[in-house]
C-alpha cells in the first residue's frame, strides 16, 4: 500500500490556479524527485503534502490519514512528515542542540536527556556534533541545512519532504547536504525532493516527476526520464538544464 496517495489535487491562490490536477502515489521507502521550471507548482505541491498550504480540491492521504478532511489532527500527521526548507528556517534564538531537541520535547514529550542523546546522534550523523552549542547564526549555509535535516529527523518521521534544499547554498556546500540526503535514502527513508540538482535526481531518485504549469507532465525512472524524455516540454526543459 502506498504511504502517500494524492488524487486530483488542486490548489489556487485567489484566481491563480497553481496546481491543476495532480494525482500520484508514492510507496514506502521510495525516493521521488520533483523537477520542473520555477512557477510550475512543484514547491506548492510539496507544501500541500503536510498542509502548509490549504488544499483547494482533491484528496491527499498521508499514511492512511486524509489530510483534506478538516477533522483530521494535522499536527499528528505532521509529526510523521519531516520538512526541510530552502532557507533552512532554523530557530535563531536557540542553539543547534535546542533546535533539534525542541520538537521531540514539546510535541512528543520526550525526556530531555533522551532527546539530547538522540539529537547528538543525529548531529553526529550530519557531521556537526561539535556545533551543538553554537547558534545557527554562527554556521555556514550548508551547516545550517544539515542541522535542519537533523531537526526534522529528530521526530523520527516516516516521510521527509525537501523543498529545494540546496538552492540557497554556495556551490561548495551543496555536496555535504546531498551526501547526507543520499545516506538517508540508502537507509530507506521515504523522501520527496523538489530539486534543481539533476545529478542527485538521477543518482538517488527511484522516480522523477517533471512538473509544468500545475500538472505532472511526465514521470519515470530517472534513466528513462533524463535520457529518453517522451514529452516535448520535458525535452525542452532538460535541454536547458542538463
Amino acid at each position: 500500500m502506498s504511504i502517500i496517495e494524492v488524487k486530483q489535487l488542486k490548489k489556487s491562490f485567489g484566481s491563480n490556479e497553481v496546481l491543476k490536477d495532480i494525482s500520484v502515489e508514492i510507496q514506502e521507502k521510495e525516493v521521488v524527485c520533483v523537477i520542473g521550471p520555477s512557477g510550475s507548482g512543484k514547491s506548492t505541491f510539496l507544501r500541500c503534502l503536510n498542509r502548509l498550504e490549504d488544499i483547494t480540491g482533491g484528496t491527499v492521504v498521508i499514511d492512511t490519514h486524509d489530510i483534506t478532511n478538516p477533522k483530521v489532527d494535522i499536527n499528528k500527521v505532521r509529526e510523521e512528515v519531516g520538512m526541510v526548507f530552502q532557507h533552512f528556517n532554523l530557530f535563531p534564538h536557540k542553539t543547534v542542540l535546542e533546535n533539534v531537541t525542541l520538537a521531540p520535547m514539546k510535541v512528543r514529550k520526550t525526556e530531555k536527556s533522551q532527546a539530547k542523546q538522540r539529537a547528538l546522534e543525529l548531529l553526529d550523523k550530519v557531521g556537526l556534533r561539535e556545533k551543538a552549542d553554537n547558534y545557527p547564526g554562527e554556521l555556514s549555509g550548508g551547516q545550517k541545512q544539515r542541522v535542519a535535516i537533523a531537526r526534522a529527523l529528530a521526530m523520527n518521521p516516516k516521510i521527509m519532504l525537501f523543498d529545494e534544499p540546496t538552492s540557497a547554498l554556495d556551490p561548495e556546500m551543496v555536496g555535504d547536504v546531498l551526501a547526507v540526503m543520499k545516506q538517508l535514502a540508502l537507509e530507506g527513508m521515504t523522501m520527496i525532493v523538489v530539486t534543481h540538482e539533476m545529478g542527485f535526481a538521477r543518482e538517488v531518485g527511484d522516480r522523477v516527476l517533471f512538473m509544468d504549469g500545475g500538472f505532472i507532465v511526465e514521470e519515470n525512472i530517472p534513466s528513462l526520464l533524463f535520457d529518453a524524455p517522451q514529452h516535448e516540454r520535458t525535452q525542452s526543459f532538460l535541454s536547458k538544464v542538463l
Partner: protein
Amino acid sequence: MEVAKTAFPFFLEGLQITLYIFIIAVIAGFIIGLIVALMRLSPLKILNAIAIVYIDVIRGTPFIVQLFFIYFGLNSLEWLSMDRMYAGILTVAINAGAYFAEIIRAGIQSIDKGQTEAARSLGMTGRQTMTQIILPQAFRRMLPTITNQSIISLKDTSLLSIIGIADLTQQGQVQQATTFEPFIVWTVVGLMYFVVIYLLSLLAKFLERRFTLR
C-alpha cells in the same frame, strides 16, 4: 539649597508614588497590549474589530481626556466608584496598552513566516509556535520600542497630579506653594524624573545587549 533639602523628603515620597503607579500600569498595559495584539492578529473578525476600535479610540484621544473620562465620567455613572489612584493606574495602563498592542503586533509580524512554517511542520501547535518560537524572537526585536513607550508612560503619570494624586509632580506643586522657590523646586523635580528615566534606558540597553539577536 536649604529649600531643596527640606523639600527633598516630600519629593521622594512623590517619586515613590510615581514609580508605584508606573510599574503597575506598565505591567498591566503590557499584558493588555499582548492580548490585544493577539486579538488583532486573530482570524476571528469580531476580536479583530474590538482590537482595532480600542487602539483607534486610545490613539485618537488625548491622555487627559481619557483620564477625565475614566475618573470623572465613569464615576459619575454611579455604578462603580474608583478612587483616584485606581483611576489613574487604569488610565495609564489602558493608554499604554493600545500602544504596546501595536508594538507587539508589528514585532510578531516582523518574524519571518518560515519560522512559523518550520515549527508547524514539526507538529507544534499554533500556541507552542507562538510561545516557543515567535514571541521570544519578537520581544528581542521590540525591546527598544517597548522601552520608548514605557518612558512615555512614565512621563504621562505626571498628568495624574491633575486629579489630585500625590505623585512627584503634585509634590512639586505643593512645595512650590510652601517655599515660593519655583526655580529650585522644578529643577529638582525635573532632575529626579531625568535620573529615573536615564536609569530605565540603561536597564533597557543592558537587556538589549544580553538578548542580542544571534
